[in-house]
């Protein structure tokens, strides 16, 4: 069995807002050390305001760390590297484009030729179950559908690392569970490395190979939990006894941190 390959690595990363100015500083994140193996599904859970989104921004190249290094595929990153896809928490579908045009957006800007665009867009639309809505506008779709559009838009770019920032936060529980299944399907089909930020412990426990637990702000990793799930999994593993154990362990670490961020004694 080949040794796990390091896909992305954060070393000693901190992010301090207002660093280098004379104004107030906000120590949002770090120091964080994180190694992502190629092809793994990794989730990050943590209390509100702990810096999870900042972590994603730094990893994606959307934010520059105050300290530390960020490496993707062996090289230090500058700006957003090629091969990284991001799905945000808010609905980022463009209101003025149809679903099809939304999905094709990134490819068109990258100058990919029309035939290839059509092929990839058709595939992604089919894969994400959007075929019946290909010519609809986002305003005509539900929140869950719009997130699928955003995921499809990222999917067509064939990213090797997919970062998702609480993508299902605005959805109801049942839709979330089903979207989780979709995400797993996506992960298996593309073989990409996935980093998912979520506040939902069950989601992290169910979907991931590994879960990183973050402390209250400034966020640092206080635990890494390996789930040991088989690759072929879906939301039905919630009935597995091991699922309860994982969730319990996550909450045990997280409860104290959450209380801290709420301002009460643990």
């Amino acid at each position, binding site marked *: 069995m080949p040794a796990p390959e390091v896909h992305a690595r954060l070393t000693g990363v901190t992010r301090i807002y207002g660093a280098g100015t004379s104004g107030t500083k906000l120590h949002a994140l770090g120091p964080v050390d994180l190694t992502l193996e190629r092809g793994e599904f990794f989730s990050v859970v943590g209390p509100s305001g702990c810096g999870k989104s900042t972590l994603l921004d730094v990893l*994606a190249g*959307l934010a520059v760390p105050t300290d530390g290094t960020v490496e993707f595929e062996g090289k230090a990153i500058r*700006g*957003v590297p*090629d091969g*990284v*896809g*991001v799905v*945000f928490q*808010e*609905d*980022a579908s*463009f*209101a*003025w*484009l149809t679903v099809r045009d939304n999905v094709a*957006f*990134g490819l068109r*800007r990258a100058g990919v030729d029309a035939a290839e665009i059509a092929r990839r867009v058709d595939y992604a639309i089919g894969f994400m179950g959007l075929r019946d809505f290909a010519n609809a*506008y986002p*305003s005509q779709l539900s929140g869950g559908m719009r997130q699928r559009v955003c995921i499809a838009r990222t999917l067509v*770019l064939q990213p090797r690392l997919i970062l998702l920032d609480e993508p299902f936060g605005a959805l109801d529980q049942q839709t979330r569970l089903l979207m989780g299944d979709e995400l797993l399907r996506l992960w298996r089909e593309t073989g990409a490395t996935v980093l998912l930020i979520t506040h939902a412990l069950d989601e992290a426990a169910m979907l991931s190979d590994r879960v990183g637990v973050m402390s209250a702000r400034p966020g640092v990793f206080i635990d890494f939990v390996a789930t040991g799930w088989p690759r072929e999994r879906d939301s039905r593993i919630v009935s597995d006894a091991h699922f309860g154990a994982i969730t319990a362990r996550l909450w045990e670490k997280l409860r104290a941190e959450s209380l801290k961020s709420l301002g009460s004694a643990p």
Partner: protein
Amino acid sequence: MRKAGDFLILIVVLLAVWQVLHMIAGDTTLTSPADTFAKLGALMRTEQFWANVAETGQAFALALVISIVGGVGIGTLLGLNRTSGTVSEPILISLYSLPKVTLYPLVLLCFGLGMSAKVAFGAMHGLIPVALFTMKAIMHIKPVYLRTARALRLSPGQVAATIALPAVLPEVMAGARLGFSLSLLGVLIGEMFASKRGLGFMINSAMGLGDIATIMAVAVFLSVFAVAANALLLVIDRAIPR
């Protein structure tokens, strides 16, 4: 279908009210609907009327172009930076609610009597709402759109053309509709106050002669034009997916 029917009923009611007012007030005060339309028909057969229309139309067209191009330009520049937007907003709003007619003498002193003064009046009125709406639209572009643009590694030109522009279009259209109406108003008031040509002047001179029929005929003409144009802009507005 019912909506169209209701609307027609409303028009009939308005015409009826007009007729009743005419019968109360008398011919020298308020012309009847029938006479007004007859007068309008007669006017439209004269060359003089259309010369006036052309005069007003020219000034209005120029004022409109300046309002929209200038307004979008200024609004974009001010809106790109959060601070400049926040600082400018109250200033623009104050200018908007100012009775700009008070500044007309200044405009006349700068431009003299004539076409350029009229265009200036119209532009003064139309530019501010366009700038205001554009500025606010730019400031309110969904932040997630801009983050998406960065995640997709778009160039600034691509962001402007493929994301910013479509995102602000609905609000800019609303500002443009307002700018349209206000430019027309500005040009007409300018003509009523200080011009020897154009529809505004026509109204004013008719008033001096006590020629009610002409006043009302021109007013109807302008109203129909304004409402029709506004309706057209609304149709275009509705067609934008948002």
